């Protein structure tokens, strides 16, 4: 099945995320728009906004211009409307504010390039998505991002596409390793322990849960740098550690580096993991157990073999390497050739 057909059927809302700048996210989005046109799919598009200092769209190295087609619905900050060369009919003014002005809902009436700067917070993103569904669209794409501070878009969409680029490393093995690591994190198994799920519904801090399902809330807003504090609260009766926030390499080392303890780390979802693949794989071999509340569905991985730093990797090597570790569709949008073998 072609990717766009899969998206049409299984991902009403989809976020496209890049593992780094220039990893080919915009190309992927443009590719999908092109594909959607072929099967007359009506699209809505927005993006996760950039916070204050990053909003300088003029000086930013990456200028994500998206080529939009007639009939599409977009949601973007008021100021970006001055930067567009497409014809946009203004449909609705919202109360959602961003550094680029209030979010406006527009319909494309003349195709062309636009810059889209959407809402910053998850809450505002959800509001925006709701407003966009009022209009005549079949699918909704978010030019997304995974961020420690602002919205991690894959969580609020039905799934995501990961854009992996040569920009990650000059060494194709490293690119494959980093990409596979993210795929693994997103695909971590979901918690099935109903008792635990029930408890975590009402927990909004990091907590240690013991075998009798008694929990101790820890006053650490994010797991960042608080390894020892969490570690001290763990004993032989601990069954789960729920980390509300980012899981970093140092925190992970701190938590797993304790003999004789047999607990499972629980995270909200895979986008909260910011660890080095090396540490991760090492600890995995030592028996580390990690589960998530919500698994993130990956629709496809796209590769961009060209790095903005002037080097190029072999597209086939990237694809082959990543495919070894995943069943999802992996292809190079630059060639536009989606394999049909899976």
């Amino acid at each position, binding site marked *: 099945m072609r990717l766009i057909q899969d998206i049409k059927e299984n991902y009403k809302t989809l976020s496209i995320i890049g593992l780094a700048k220039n990893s080919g996210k915009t190309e992927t989005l443009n590719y999908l728009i092109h594909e959607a046109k072929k099967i007359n799919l009506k699209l809505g598009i927005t993006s996760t906004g950039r916070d204050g200092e990053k909003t300088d769209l003029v000086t930013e190295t990456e200028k994500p211009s998206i080529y939009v087609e007639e009939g599409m619905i977009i949601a973007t900050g008021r100021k970006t409307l001055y930067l567009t060369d497409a014809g946009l*009919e203004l449909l609705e*003014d919202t109360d959602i504010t961003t550094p680029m002005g209030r979010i406006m809902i527009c319909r494309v009436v003349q195709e062309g390039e636009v810059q889209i700067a959407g809402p910053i917070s998850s809450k505002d993103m959800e509001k925006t998505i709701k407003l966009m569904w009022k209009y005549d669209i079949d699918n909704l794409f978010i030019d997304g991002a995974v961020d420690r501070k602002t919205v991690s878009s894959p969580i609020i969409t039905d799934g995501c596409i990961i854009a992996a680029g040569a920009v990650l490393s000059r060494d194709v093995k490293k690119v494959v390793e980093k990409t596979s690591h993210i795929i693994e994190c997103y695909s971590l198994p979901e918690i099935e322990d109903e008792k635990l799920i029930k408890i975590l519904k009402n927990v909004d801090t990091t907590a240690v849960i013991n075998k009798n399902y008694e929990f101790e809330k820890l006053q650490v807003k994010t797991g960042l740098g608080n390894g020892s504090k969490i570690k001290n609260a763990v004993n032989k009766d601990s069954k789960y550690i729920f980390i509300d926030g980012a899981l970093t390499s140092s925190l992970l080392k701190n938590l797993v580096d304790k003999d004789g303890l047999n607990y499972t780390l629980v995270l909200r979802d895979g986008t909260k993991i910011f660890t080095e693949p090396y540490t991760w794989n090492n600890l995995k071999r030592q028996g580390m157990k990690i589960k998530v509340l919500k698994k993130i569905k990956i629709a496809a991985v796209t590769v961009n073999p060209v790095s903005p730093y*002037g080097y190029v990797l072999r597209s086939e090597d990237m694809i082959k390497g990543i495919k070894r570790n995943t069943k999802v569709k992996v292809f190079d949008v630059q060639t536009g050739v989606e394999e049909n073998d899976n």
Partner: protein
Amino acid sequence: MIISENTIKSLDFQYILNMIEPYSPYGIKKKKKMRIFKPGEEEDLLEELNKVEFFLKHKKRDEMKSILAHFKEVGESIEKAKKGYVLLTVELFEIKNFLIQVNKLIDAVNADLNSERIKFNFGEIELKKMIELEKSLDPKKDRLNTFYIYDEYSKKLINLRNRKRKLKREMKEEKEKIKEKIKQEYDLNLNLKDEVVISKAEKDLIEKIEEGTYLNFSSENYLNHIYGLKKTEKIHQIESKYDEMKSLEDKEEKRIRKNLSKLVAGSYDSLKWNIETVGKIDLVLAKSEEAKQTESTKPLVVEENTLKIKKGRHLKTEKFLKEKGNQYTPITIELSPGTTCITGANMGGKTVTLKMVGQVMAALVYGLYVPCEKLKAGLRNFIYISTGDEQSVERGLSTFGAEISSLKKVLEIKEGKGLILIDELAGGTNPKEGYAITKTIIEYLNEKDSISIITTHFDKAAEGEDILKLQVSGLSQIDENQLKDELKINPKKGQEIIAKYMDYTLKKVEENEVPKDAIRIAQLMGLQEDIINKAKEIISKTD
């Protein structure tokens, strides 16, 4: 200033002001400049109160709130247009939406023209329909709130856009043709950027491409050559034609925007009027909402110098008590020019009563409904309160210093009908001198046009037949044994239990001695028995 920041703070009047929450940016601006009514402006105040009543009784209140919440700020765009600037599409969109919201608001207001409308100059809050401007911003006549420089604005525009579309189509067709040839000749597919990446290893293919006519070398890296589609003469022609059309379209759009901006500028006065009026409606509606929430009533404004409150409530105290499950006792009080003295038990609510009077009167001068069952009062030139707790650490003044310093300023106001509220004047200094100062000021203020209330614990400070003396009814009427029993069960809840049994109402008294309740209250509050006994001993000796 008729009410100073300090007085607003001491009266907890901000609590009421915070409950006035306009929905639109225009109403919020109006609130910041809320009018204060002075003596002589009784008629204007009555008009304002009638407006509040009109909206309070209006059946479409909720609808109006939601319409107002959708208003966006267009003031800047309108000023821009007046100065001759060409407005952007998004600004025209906002003005169009403003007009649509105005229409909705007109319909909502007119849907229930209850009879209160005839009690004020309705024309003052009557919004103007702006049919001409509306029409010009809705060329498709579909009455939607969407906006674009639509084809309907000019034939020229349709023409240009059609030609643009045609050129784009031709371009695609031309490119497809070439791509087809490339496919046939080299078995290659171009990507979205019309490029193809060829590995350097494929020397034969590269040679073939270089000799051919369809692909252009565009860049290389150490692995690949990248070729782009070679533009034919025809493509160049189409491109330059397209650019020409695009720039003509931009010009035509700008011409249309310029015309529309002129129309906006031409409607400047009406737009300004509507902006102002939306603000006025919003503020009055917000005032009526506050009245509803606080169960306030319409005051009776008179020209005579009087102040009669029936069952007045200090809202913040009332809310505080309610949250703790206790009741607030509304207070009835009738005042006339000169001094009124309130004496009575500690914890008898004297301070709250002072604040209540101030709050009710502050609400009146701001043109609000008042938190009492009935108010009959004349307007005041100023409202002043001293609660004796306004230490001014920054200015290095003690309680007494701050008290005297602000009192001095108020006494300097010789003329006019003020409301002066003083809580335990000179309560923080020695009783002999405190008494002297208090008595003098009571007599001094008694000669003035202002209405003054002073609470005091000093005996005989309010001597004199023409000084009205009020006393808190206090604990005298209740069964003390019952109270003591309750305190025994709950010794830590003394304050609440006393509050429960306290009769806060005021009664007129003739005697000049203040009631002696302090030791009794202290005892009920559970102060150490030996201290109470010793204090009683001292009292009996001095008597």
